[in-house]
């Protein structure tokens, strides 16, 4: 118990020191109004934008023994990216999180969709728990839309390949079997897309309820991109405060690494949804194209899953770290300053 109190005291001292030494760096990332509003009792973690020089120096304070193993867990692989890697990941994320049409155009009602940033979504929420629930709803909807985007692109690629194959018009059972496989793949994609559109509507309703908004202005479409880069936790001082902080401090670096691995596994941004196959020389090539397409689909969905999980973890970590933080600072701690 004595050691626990000692760590608490130590944590408070470190946080105060960190506020004094790195506060300017944090403020430099924030818009003026956010800086004015930012007067948290403890300094929240900040986004590490990689190229930025505002990242605070590593604190020299030794972590508590109880968390040492956990901290060591994050030291195996570097979380730093080169500029080229960072740019590649940014491009990949941008393509994956493009917003496609979320409705099919059917039905009588005219559907109006409005972009909704994370800050706007949280602007009317004061309670910390409600804010956290709204953030999770926001990222869940964002993931569903990214999922839809992936499915639409994958379907387009499959349809295009099927069109090329059909032109060959080979009248053999093997070829007809291949075309049947393509038709099954396309109809499955259609079903998934229709299902996702329903899920997106449900997600929008859930988000509006949790952000205390109405549909009068239209259906919300999350416009903020989830965080995918390195993240400075300031975990040394935080881990002794709660189990949740300790857990997330272990998990976030792992999820960042998983995000890197997943993102880079997608290959070049130009070919995220298109297999690098230029010609069909044999019937087998048609199957290989479809298999490659499916692998790409699975990998892209995995990337979206990892980023959603990472951003939920960051939200929980920030909420536990600074429960009374202002909404704008809270959002800044989650995704940095969005380029308007």
């Amino acid at each position, binding site marked *: *118990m004595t050691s*626990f109190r000692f760590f608490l005291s130590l944590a408070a001292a470190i946080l105060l020191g960190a506020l004094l030494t790195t506060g300017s760096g944090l403020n430099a990332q924030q818009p003026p109004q956010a800086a004015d509003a930012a007067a948290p009792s403890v300094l929240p973690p900040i986004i590490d934008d990689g190229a930025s020089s505002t990242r605070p120096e590593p604190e020299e304070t030794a972590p508590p023994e*109880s*968390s040492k*193993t*956990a901290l*060591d*867990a994050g030291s*195996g692989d570097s979380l730093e990216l080169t500029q080229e890697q960072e740019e590649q990941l940014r491009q990949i994320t941008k393509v994956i999180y493009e917003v496609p049409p979320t409705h099919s155009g059917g039905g009588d009602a005219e559907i109006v969709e409005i972009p909704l940033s994370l800050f706007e979504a949280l602007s009317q929420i004061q309670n910390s728990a409600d804010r956290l629930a709204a953030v999770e709803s926001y990222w869940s909807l964002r993931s569903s839309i990214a999922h839809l985007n992936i499915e639409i692109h994958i379907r387009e690629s499959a349809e295009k390949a099927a069109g090329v194959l059909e032109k060959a018009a080979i009248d053999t059972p093997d070829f007809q079997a291949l075309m049947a496989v393509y038709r099954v793949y396309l109809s499955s994609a259609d079903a998934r897309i229709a299902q996702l559109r329903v899920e997106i509507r449900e997600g929008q309703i859930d988000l509006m309820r949790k952000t205390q908004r109405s549909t009068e202005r239209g259906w919300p479409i999350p416009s903020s991109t989830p965080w995918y880069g390195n993240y400075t936790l300031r975990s040394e001082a935080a*881990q002794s405060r709660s*189990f*949740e902080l*300790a*857990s997330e401090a*272990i*998990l976030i670096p*792992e*999820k960042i*690494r*998983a995000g890197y*691995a*997943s993102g880079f*596994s*997608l*290959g070049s941004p130009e070919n995220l949804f298109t*297999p*690098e*196959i*230029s*010609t*069909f*020389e044999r019937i*087998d*090539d048609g*199957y*290989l*194209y*479809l*298999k*490659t397409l499916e*692998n*790409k689909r*699975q*990998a892209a969905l*995995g*990337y979206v*899953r*990892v980023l959603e*999980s990472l951003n939920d973890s960051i939200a929980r970590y920030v909420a536990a770290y600074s429960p009374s933080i202002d909404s704008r600072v809270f959002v800044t701690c989650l995704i940095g300053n969005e380029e308007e």
Partner: protein
Amino acid sequence: MASVKKYSGVFGAIFFLLISIPVLRADDAVLFDDAFFDAEDPLVVADPQEGTVPAAPPTADQPVPAADQPAPPAGQPAPAEGQSAAPPASAAGQPQAVSREEPFSVDLEPRVIPEVVPGQTEPAVEPAAPPAAVDAPAPSRENAESLPADSAESEPAPPVESAPAELPKEEESGVGEEIELVKTLVSPPDSVLGQLHGEPTALSDVLEGVTRPADRKSLTEAYWKLSEALALYHLSLISAGDIEDCITRFTQQGTPSESQTAVLVSARRLAAQRSAEAKVAFVEAQCRLAELRSRNGAAGDRTFRPAIPTDAPNTLSYQTRFDRISREKRLSPQAAYYAEAIPAYYETMTLYDKSAADALEAFRTLYFAGGTSAEILLSAADKLNSAKERLIRSVCTYNKMIAAYVAETVGADVRGQQLISTMIRVPGRSPLPAWDAAPSTRIASAAPIPTQYSPRRPRPVSAEIPQFDSSAPPNAESVVQPSQNAEMLR
């Protein structure tokens, strides 16, 4: 002389009878065997070492401790191996009917007691069996399985010097290689463990000092979830290795085509992505268990300790002993549910086991078959991975069910290795109940155990990852030709 002749026939008959009576008595003794003596004098049994000792016939709710080994006090861990009450040598690996009959045939007739030789179990001193009327309920499936274990438990055997002789060999017991597969996956090599962080932790470490059944249940479930996550992470790396093997296969056959290159590269990237996700899932499970341990740990011990599980989950059939326990204690509907569900889920698990073996066989066949397309081979690798994943998840579910059943049936007074042995095989302990219960912990004496060996026949398919023959030199046509596609696959 005439009178002699006259009576010689009578004398001959009397002489013949005098000679033949002992022979008939000996034959009768063999023929009547146990039932005969049991019916004549059920209160006396012959001890092979100490002569004759009185034995009160136990009832269902009154187990009798071994004559030469007093029961330990309540809560005291069972004796270690070599000192524990162990089942007869045949009990673990032989058909159950043999084990069930043994107490009668061995103990009541000294002349049929086998000699005790080093490395074999000493004959047990068995009290008389309870009357058949007491065991009136017809044995259900799990009840039937538990019968030999029940007798071994309520009638503990004397200490043995070493247990290995009584443990069945793998090929005899029917412990299939897919069980070894699960064990392999939950016990990764150092090369895999080196990528993880945490303290090696046994299930007993997690449950140490935890008395509330609900807490035990949640902690045990979290432990198996962590074990599952570890196995899945290990599996993801193995699957990535399978993909690399496929790539090697196609590059050895010649320059891969553009389509083959594309699909192999995408499969490799997907495997890397899945490994990354599996590692995150493992760390999440670590955090979940660490948090539960911190909350349930002993007073003052609130250390947050990520763990690496060292105990393998149970993959053998499980004896719920529901009928026996329910005679001694009122059990919840949940316990009744699990008593039915656990054997049923064991069957499910064995089907997943078979599915994984079939998928492995298919993958190996396609791998070695000439002319297999990349799409088909990769699909087979996918199916193999999925089959193994389903098997692992089913094993975790099975063990969670067992944990839930134990929480419903085992009291707080059972702790330590005794508690662990109700869920998994404890290394170094007899596969059959090896702990005695004092009267105060009588319910524990009827605690469930997980250790009935599977009667399944071993399968010919190796549980190991296919070892491809690298000694065979490639033929002239299969020499790799450097090309752009080959470069991409490096």
